[in-house]
């Protein structure tokens, strides 16, 4: 990384090189991971349902997602006549950008996160609220009653589940004392019976609330009412075809991956693990393992539970999750006050 950075620093200058290396690095990391993630989801879904999942395309269907992406590339881009063209075309782009930025703020290793920001956590939480804007734009612009229903449902859902996620993150920040993600991982961890443990053990309730919140935020079952197949045909992306639909498809999995990584960093201790100091490359490996653990549980939940009804989902968030998250925050503050 640093050698490449120095090479590029000449013509582009310091900042340009960092930007270029950062963007290419993130895009490559995300694209490879998402392609693997889509394949993993279809295999996990298959084996949960006692069937095989993709098999014929490459050994055990490994190239299946590549085939899907290539096919979606080659599809005709249909734009229905009565859509609000500009908003319709902007939505797929906008849905993808916030998750890209959030991905760059996750500390991959001890050496240097791409953007070691003092207020990284706050930026992350605000950016992750932007994807719902794009989803509503897609729903509204495609002039389809199902899409409008899907769009409005997703706005109500993300607003309702953004707050518990925020409160859960706050209680971790209280314990850790810093909002800089990089320091959050490298700072000495709280001790339980003399053994340093990640924040997830100290804040179990916040971890569960955070996990439920990001499942809702990424529109995944049992909270996938914006694109509920059995009710709203295709939900907000009913009218999108070809590469535009692939952007939504890609964004959903990127969102899941990035929020999973955020969860892993906050609650499971990010890139820290045994021998991490000696071999710096182990950092990203640990982070990936923990992220895939979180993502696997999300997939497991998706293929087990039926979908919540719209009003039940709202009352579950407002009447149960938010009070619980507030109580947890207050309890943490009290406990810290007593200990300090």
């Amino acid at each position, binding site marked *: 990384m640093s050698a490449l950075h120095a090479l590029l620093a000449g013509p582009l200058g310091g900042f340009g090189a960092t930007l270029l290396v950062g963007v290419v690095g993130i895009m490559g990391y995300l694209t490879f991971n998402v392609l693997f993630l889509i394949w993993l989801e279809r295999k996990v879904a298959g084996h949960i349902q*006692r*069937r095989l999942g993709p*098999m014929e395309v490459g050994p055990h269907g490994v190239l299946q997602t590549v085939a899907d992406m290539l096919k979606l590339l080659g599809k005709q881009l249909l734009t229905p006549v009565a859509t609000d063209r500009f908003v319709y075309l902007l939505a797929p782009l906008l849905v993808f950008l916030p998750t890209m930025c959030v991905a760059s703020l996750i500390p991959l290793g001890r050496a240097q996160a791409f953007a070691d920001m003092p207020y990284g956590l706050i930026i992350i939480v605000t950016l992750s609220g932007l994807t719902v804007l794009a989803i509503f734009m897609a729903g509204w612009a495609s002039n389809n009653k199902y899409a409008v229903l899907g769009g409005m449902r997703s706005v109500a859902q993300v607003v309702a589940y953004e707050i518990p996620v925020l409160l859960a993150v706050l209680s971790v920040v209280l314990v850790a004392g810093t909002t800089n993600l990089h320091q959050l991982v490298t700072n000495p961890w709280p001790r339980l019976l003399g053994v340093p443990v990640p924040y997830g053990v100290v804040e179990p309730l916040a971890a569960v609330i955070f996990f439920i919140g990001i499942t809702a935020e990424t529109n995944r079952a049992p909270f996938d009412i914006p694109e509920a197949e059995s009710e709203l045909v295709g939900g907000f992306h009913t009218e999108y075809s070809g590469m535009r639909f692939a952007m939504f498809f890609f964004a959903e999995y990127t969102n899941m991956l990035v929020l999973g990584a955020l969860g892993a960093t906050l609650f499971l201790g990010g890139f820290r693990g045994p021998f991490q100091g000696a071999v710096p490359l182990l950092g990203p490996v640990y982070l990936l393992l923990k992220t895939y653990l979180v993502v696997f549980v999300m997939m*497991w939940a998706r293929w087990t539970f039926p979908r919540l009804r719209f009003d039940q989902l709202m009352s579950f968030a407002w009447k149960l999750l938010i009070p619980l998250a507030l109580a947890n925050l207050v309890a943490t503050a009290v406990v810290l006050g007593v200990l300090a």
Partner: protein
Amino acid sequence: MNFTARVARGIKSLLVGLGVTGRHLVRPVVTLQYPHQRPDASHWGGPIELVTFPETGTHDCIACNACARICPSDCFAIEGKRPEGAKKMRATKFLIDFSTCSLCGLCVDVCPTDTLQYSRRYEDVAYRRSLTVNDLLAPFPEDPYFTGKLA
């Protein structure tokens, strides 16, 4: 307190549900990989075909059109000719339009010489609609009754 009891029961049911699917995740798969493994179609009632009788080595269709008359979907097109010097007719053309056949089996029951039967085939696919018409005489290149081997 029944609210927290209800929430607790709800969480327990969710975890039990995860347990069930989790157990299935590790159990063996039930998939039959069709093109590589073949199903047991020994009892499958596929498209109708002519029976090859071992003693004559050919079918025994006398073109009496009993099957054509009883067929609810009128799938049969049969023509027959009487080999010279023989009493019974022999079918020279026997087509079944398998795209209108509903496999009800009435023709198999009504055939006086029991020369029709269900086949075991299940992979008939075609690019063109005309290919879905089965020619039942195709597997019988030449008819011994006409070439004088049998009378």
